[in-house]
C-alpha cells in the first residue's frame, strides 16, 4: 500500500493506482470528462487536473494518469487548479452549450456562454476520444479513428466514408458525452 495525502487527508492506494482511482475510492470529487473506467485513460480533457507536491516541486498534473507515490501531497482545490478547470469548462461550453453534461459543469463553475460562442452549433464533438477508444479497446473493430490534427482534428472513418470494419454495435453512441456522435454515426458506420 502507498500512503499519501489528498487535500491534507491521509489516504492509501495500491501500487498501480492513479490519483483519480484513490480519490474515487475515498469519495473525493474530481470532475472528469474523457475518463471512463472501461477504457485506458487518454488525458485529453485536462478537467481532472490536481496540484501535486512531490517534495521537490509543486506542479499541475492530471489525476487520471498520475501514478500515486509515497508521501506526495495532492491538492484538488487551489486557485491554479480552478483557473484551469474554469477555462476548460468555458471553452467547451462555447462549443456545446446544449449538452446536458456541459450545462451541469457550467452551473458548477459559474460559467456562461461567452461572446466567442459560435451561432448554430449546440453539440460539438470535444474529441475526448471515448468513442475511438471504445471501438478499439472494447469492441476491437478499429472502425473509428482520429483524423487530421489541431483545429481540424476530427473523429471519422478512413476517407470519410462508411467503414468496412464497423459492426453497427452502437457502443460509440453510448459513450459519447456530448451527443455529437448522433450526427456522425450514419456517416462513419457501415
Amino acid at each position, binding site marked *: 500500500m502507498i500512503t499519501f495525502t489528498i487535500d491534507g487527508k491521509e489516504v492509501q492506494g495500491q501500487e498501480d493506482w492513479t490519483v483519480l482511482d484513490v480519490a474515487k475510492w475515498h469519495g473525493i470529487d474530481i470532475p472528469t470528462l474523457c475518463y471512463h473506467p472501461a477504457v485506458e485513460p487518454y488525458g485529453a480533457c485536462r478537467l481532472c487536473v490536481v496540484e501535486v507536491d512531490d517534495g521537490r516541486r509543486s506542479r499541475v498534473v492530471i489525476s487520471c494518469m498520475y501514478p500515486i507515490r509515497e508521501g506526495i501531497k495532492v491538492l484538488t482545490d487551489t486557485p491554479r487548479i480552478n483557473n484551469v478547470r474554469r477555462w476548460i469548462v468555458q471553452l467547451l461550453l462555447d462549443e456545446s452549450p446544449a449538452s446536458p453534461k456541459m450545462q451541469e459543469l457550467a452551473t458548477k463553475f459559474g460559467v456562461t456562454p461567452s461572446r466567442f460562442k459560435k451561432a448554430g452549433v449546440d453539440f460539438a464533438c470535444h474529441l475526448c476520444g471515448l468513442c475511438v477508444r471504445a471501438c478499439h479497446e472494447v469492441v476491437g473493430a*478499429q472502425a*473509428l*479513428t*482520429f*483524423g487530421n*490534427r489541431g483545429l481540424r482534428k476530427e473523429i471519422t*472513418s*478512413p*476517407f470519410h466514408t462508411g467503414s468496412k*470494419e464497423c459492426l453497427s454495435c452502437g457502443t460509440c453512441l453510448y459513450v459519447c458525452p456530448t451527443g455529437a456522435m448522433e450526427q456522425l454515426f450514419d456517416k462513419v458506420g457501415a
Partner: protein
Amino acid sequence: MSVTFKSLETILDQYPPNPEHLISALQDVQAKFSYIPKEAMTAVCDHLGVPVSRGWAVATFYKAFSLEPKGEHEISVCLGTACHVRGARNVYEKFRRDLAIPGEEGTTKDLKFTLRQVRCLGCCSMAPVAQIDEEVHGGLSQRKAGTLLKQFRKR
C-alpha cells in the same frame, strides 16, 4: 502517374510487414505519385498489417502527405519568424493573389502550381524565402515574387 500494382510493389518490397514502416512507406508513395491514392493507402496498410484507420490517421496528421493530387510546381513560401519580420506575409499574399488560390493554401485549377506555407526552411539569412520545387529563392519582395511566377509559368 497511374497507380499500378507494379509501381506499388517496388515500394512495398522494401519493407518487411511491420507497422513501424508505415510512415516511411507512405513517404515513398507520396514521392512517387505526389499524393496518396486510396488504392495505395489500402495496399500499404494491408501489407504492413495495420488497420486502414491507422493509415488514414497518419496520412492526415503529417503535413508531408497529401490525399489530393498536387500541382506540377510546388511553391513553399516560408513564413518562419525571420521571414515574417521581413515581410513574408505580404509576399505570400502576392503569390495567392496572382495564382488565384481561394483558400489559405491550395492548387491552381490547371494543376500547374500548388501553393503552401512552410515554417522555416532554415535559410533565415536570406529572408524572405520561398522554395519552388527544389530551388530556394531568397531576398523576395512582392515584385520579385511576381517575376518568379512569370518565369515558372513559361517552364
